């Protein structure tokens, strides 16, 4: 029985494998990608129910580009699939001020269209809690 499919996109392979253990222990099916290009391909091919995305892989903006490319893909699914950003807590407020305005530049005052944040270092219990919360919210809609 699967409680959903989670795609983890992070260039830290060790973290991806660790998170796989956590998520699989809760019955999730896990797909993994280690860069944003592969990540986007996997979104198309695997159609995950949720994406766990690292902000910084490996450049400081790649996570942002991933989100904006994802949201600009054709189809309702790509606009709606929930994303949880993996980040450090003090970056949380900063995130909302650096969204891509579509042409590769960043403008202030908007929110990144993601559903939640999980602080790094990732606490397994917290991660599971967040994942469940976001997934149940997205299933209701």
């Amino acid at each position, binding site marked *: 029985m699967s409680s959903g499919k989670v795609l983890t996109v992070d260039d*830290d392979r*060790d*973290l991806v494998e*660790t*998170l796989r*253990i*956590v998520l699989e*222990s809760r019955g999730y099916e896990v797909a993994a990608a280690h860069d944003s290009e592969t990540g986007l391909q996997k979104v198309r091919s695997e159609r995950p129910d949720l994406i766990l995305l690292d902000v*910084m892989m490996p450049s400081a903006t790649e996570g942002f580009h991933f989100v904006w490319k994802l949201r600009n893909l054709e189809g309702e699914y790509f606009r709606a699939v929930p994303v949880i950003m993996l980040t*450090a*807590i*003090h*970056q*949380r*407020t*900063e995130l909302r*001020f650096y969204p891509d305005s579509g042409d590769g530049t960043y403008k*202030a*005052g908007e929110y990144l269209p993601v559903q939640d944040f999980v602080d*790094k*270092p*990732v*606490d*397994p*219990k917290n991660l599971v809690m967040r994942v469940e919360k976001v997934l149940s919210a997205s299933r209701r809609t």
Partner: protein
Amino acid sequence: MERPSILPAAAELAEHIGWLIRLRWIAVIGVVCTLEAAHRVLGILLPLGSLYGVTAVLAVYNLVLTVVAKQLQRAQRPGSDRPPGAVSHAVLRVLWGMQLDREAPEAAALANIQISIDLFLLAVLLHFSGGIENPFIIFFIFHIIIASILLSPRATYVQATLGFVLISAVSFAECFGVLEHYPLGAMWTPDGYRNPIVVGVELFVLGTTLYLSVYMGTTIASQLRRRERQIALLSRDLAEKAGNLEVAYRKVRQTERTKSQYMRKVAHELRGPLGTIKTALRVVLDGLVGELPERSRDLISRAERRAGELAELTRDLLALSRAREGRAATEMVPVKLDELVRAVYEEMSPAADQAGVELSVKSAADLGELRGDPAGLQQLLSNLVSNGIRYTPRGGTVEVRVRHTAHYLRFEVEDTGVGIPGEDIPRVFDDFFRSTSARERVPEGTGLGLSIVKAVAQQHGGSVSVESELGRGTRFAVDLPLPITVSAEPQT
């Protein structure tokens, strides 16, 4: 250290006195030559004994002055702490109590004495050589020119008056027979213009007057030009030094930035692996990969805790370097203060509950906005609150107060915690410093929390202060300057 070569007022006056002394030697020679010429060549009958006597007095007095001036010059030489010699002191004290020039009282007094004595001696010389008849009477002019160069305007007027009174007294005393008159003979006959001696003497006086005027004028002018050149050189030198300082300062700043950037890169590189280690260990501890023997569990739990400490350290180092590197003004964005305070409250509430500490916020209804770095500001406030919670025993309180003053926004975080020992207070904002009371209560800690608070406050042009009483509590206050107008629109 090399002193600038420009002459301060005192040294300049001392130099002028030296010049005056040289002029006086010329005068002594001039008087002797003139007297010799007058009686040997022109056959004018003069009281030579008296005249040579006065000249001798002039010579001796100039000799004394030479010694006094030398001592003065030595005393004023840069680096010398020797007072003016006893002789000069005695001379100055006895002869002149006035201090006309505040910058060089001794030298100014010396100049005054000399000119007064010179005037007096000239009057005496003139008295013994025809008084009002003597064409050299015009030489009073030179004394007054010298006085106007050396002395203050007031002192020069006093000297001019003194000279005039002296020669008037001599002239009238001769006129009324109080003093004997020593006539120059042919000089004052009605047809003196027919007498080649009279014509020669008059022309000689005029000639010496002209050439002495030229000598004095050009000497003064060249001195002025020299000083101008010195000033020009000095200002160029100063400008160059200022430029060098500027360059050095920029280099230091650049080094600081490089250091900070390096620290940030290192911390950033460490953070990823550390986070992964901590998460992996946590997964093992949570039993997700099977049950652990008790001893393994204990060890891994220790390792996980230490990895967590390191993760915290790298996080703090990152925040610190970020605040210290500063950010361009364009990266500062409007921060809604209500949201900021609420976010910190929500972030910290669970920790406060867990510690049994009551966390409360008192703030004005509408706090408005502040232009700044939202992440930095949030960390500033959460660091202060988290410190308050960490160092306050169960049952205590941590209160956050936010209010506007006219030009500042003030955050205050006050706790009823363990406090900071007085001797530690000056160091609490130092990197890696933790007070003894803090270490006793919580052994772990990066010692960077308050460094970050200070760096962020400074990054926003503000400041932070602390008051604490050991065992009673601590109050931190952060003042951040507000823009002149508080508006809802982002300011460009």
